[in-house]
């Protein structure tokens, strides 16, 4: 099957499930089909597949692999976009090479519509770099697309690692419902810089994403959410967390806007399969038991649909709200403890 034919099938499924409908059998069948297609084209995937039988039928590529080898079903000259992770102090950055952005756009638009913008377009304020400044940031790319899809007006107030406090304050003086979107560390910068609280109009919302990555002081999620709510004058239920990563094409959002009474968890789009797996056997953990998060994302057609993260999570097959995800943070054991070390950065790792 050609890429175009497979992409069309995936696009059709995304469109069919965009309103929150579920068809897990169709999703799983298409995941297997896409994985088989990728196995013959993505060299590291073929090697991983030959390693041992995977409990889910095809292997998930650990995110670190994207730092060391190219994971793509097409040659570099056909890259439409290369998104890169924020990297480590050694400078090694994971690369996600995309040949066509249609599936990425389709998935991002569908889920953001459902999770954030069901009321329609509004003013957008971004605490993140503009895509022209960060062309290899998947987050900036997505936010840039949000302007086209959901924006009545857009203000970018974070540039070259600095928050433009004056611009942010000006952007928050408004009578129009506004969505403030950005990274967690940028919101912390704003907390440290802003001298007063604001009161955004009803219908406004905040979307925050990502960790701190050593760029700001660390703030516990509950505390940051409460601070954001107080600072911008939006109810906590309208402060929505986003979970995404460079190696994925789809995103997940907390469901608090559409289900404010439900526990605060991330909703899993119908074209994505989340599984908590045992760290040693890679077998799925029973429903509701924590494990290492594996994400199978149909929109990842150009790289690998199966992605193995280092995040600890609980996945629930929740009938009322679809599958949901509770994140427990990044597993911390990347290196041995005690007098052993974390000095990979000192070595250079390519």
């Amino acid at each position, binding site marked *: 099957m050609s890429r175009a034919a497979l992409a069309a099938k995936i696009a059709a499924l995304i469109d069919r499930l965009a309103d929150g409908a579920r068809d897990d059998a169709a999703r799983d069948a298409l995941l297997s089909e896409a994985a088989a297609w990728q196995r013959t084209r993505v060299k590291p995937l073929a090697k991983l597949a030959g390693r041992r039988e995977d409990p889910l039928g095809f292997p998930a590529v*650990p995110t670190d*692999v994207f730092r060391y080898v190219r994971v793509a079903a097409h040659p570099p000259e056909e890259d439409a976009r290369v998104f890169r992770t924020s990297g480590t102090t050694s400078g090694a950055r994971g690369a996600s090479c995309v040949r066509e952005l249609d599936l990425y756009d389709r998935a991002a638009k569908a889920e953001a519509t459902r999770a954030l913008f069901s009321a329609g377009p509004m003013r957008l304020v971004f605490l993140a770099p503009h895509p022209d400044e960060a062309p290899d940031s998947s987050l900036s790319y997505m936010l840039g697309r949000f302007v086209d899809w959901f924006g009545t007006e857009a203000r970018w107030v974070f540039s070259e690692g600095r928050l433009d406090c004056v611009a942010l304050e000006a952007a928050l003086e408004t009578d129009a419902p506004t969505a403030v979107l950005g990274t967690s560390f940028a919101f912390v910068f704003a907390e440290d810089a802003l001298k007063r609280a604001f009161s955004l109009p009803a219908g406004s919302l905040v979307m925050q994403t990502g960790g701190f990555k050593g760029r700001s002081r660390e703030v516990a999620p509950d505390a940051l959410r409460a601070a954001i709510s107080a600072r911008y004058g939006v109810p906590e239920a309208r402060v929505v967390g986003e979970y995404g990563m460079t190696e994925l094409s789809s995103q997940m959002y907390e469901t608090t806007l559409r289900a404010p009474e439900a526990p605060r968890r991330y909703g899993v789009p119908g074209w994505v399969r989340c599984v908590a797996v045992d760290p040693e056997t890679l077998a799925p953990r029973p429903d509701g038991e924590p494990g290492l998060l594996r994400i199978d994302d149909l929109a990842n057609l150009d790289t690998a649909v199966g992605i193995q993260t280092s995040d600890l999570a609980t996945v629930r097959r929740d009938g009322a709200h679809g599958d949901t995800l509770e994140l427990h943070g990044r597993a911390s*054991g990347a290196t041995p403890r*005690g007098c052993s070390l*974390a000095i990979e950065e000192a070595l250079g*790792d390519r």
Partner: protein
Amino acid sequence: MIGEAELRDRVEAAISAGAQLRARPREEVASLVAAAWGLIADPERAPGRAARERLPETTGLSLPMIAWALRATFEQTDEAAHLEAARRMTPAEGAALSPARLSALILAGNVFTACVQPCSMALLAGSPLIVKASSKDDVLPQLFVAALAEIDLELAEACEVVTFPGGTPSLESALMSRADVVSVYGSDATLTAVRQRLSPTATLVPHGHGLGVGLVPRGALGDEAEAAAAATAFALDVAAYDQRGCMSPHVIWVERGGAIDARRWASMLATQLGRLAEDLPRGALPADVGAAQIQWRGVAAARGELHEGDGWAVSYEGRAALRISPGWRNVMVLDLEDARQVGAALGSLGVHLKTLGVAGDAALRRSVAASLPPGVAPRVAPAGRMQRPSLLSLADGRPPWEGLFRLTALE
């Protein structure tokens, strides 16, 4: 958790016991300390039984691994070894030894036998000791004090063991407030925190982040049997303490030009690790290490060759640069064009390189040691003995009694 007042009392108690410790002939102390360890080494004695009963839970290591580690450690810490240490500490004629009034020892939790050398050395030096053990595992130092008390109560009073969670500034300050020397096993972050809290006149003996690496020179790859012997020896180094120690090898370089190449040698190492998985099974894998292991093995499989079994993995990744392993018996095998290049490969590790295991005979070890760059001072150990330093082994390139005494010269 111990309170600050009680901790200060324990510190004072140890200091008070210093006078009686210093009054004892060093050779007598050596015999008594060795005898105390001997009680723990003996599985038929109560301290030995207690060690084997309690350590699997507190360390996460399997019982066979615990038994191996106790045997491997205590076969080198007998009375003769302690007497030799006492002899080497004796100052030259015309000089006198002035012990630290109190030494403090802060232990990590990754290798449970790490307390043996510093405890013995402090008491041999005539310095009373307060040990801050890992809050998860204080079994061996506690058993040592109990065994010492069984043998000589007065001597046992010179060694106090406490536990409290790390990052408790008031307790850490109380622990170190009277110490002339503080020896710290832990992360570089721990060392930095201790250094900031130390009085200007106290000596810090740091044992920070570290790792081991291995080398198989072509001289140790003359034929199949030699290569197999090297694989057997290094497999033990990887398996020991489930590769959680700062001497554990993360990578083994195999020099080109031998009868067996690195790719094939990696499979030989895998075979031996498979065997050891039966004799010395690995402990349970913590979830966070499991996450790191998935990533590490994934990269290995994607860009090289991965051999994996029940509780172990060997990667062969050609001439790639070293990637730090998550431990728990995951090791990398790499090609090395010429063993004389190993110094350059190790230079970036600096003080973090604790042990360099070398297959083959002593001449090969001497040759490799001679090629090490400045700033790199590992133990250069035979393959199979990376995790088995002797009582007299240098620790981080320093004498094992570093900081425990000063010398008074009679001019």
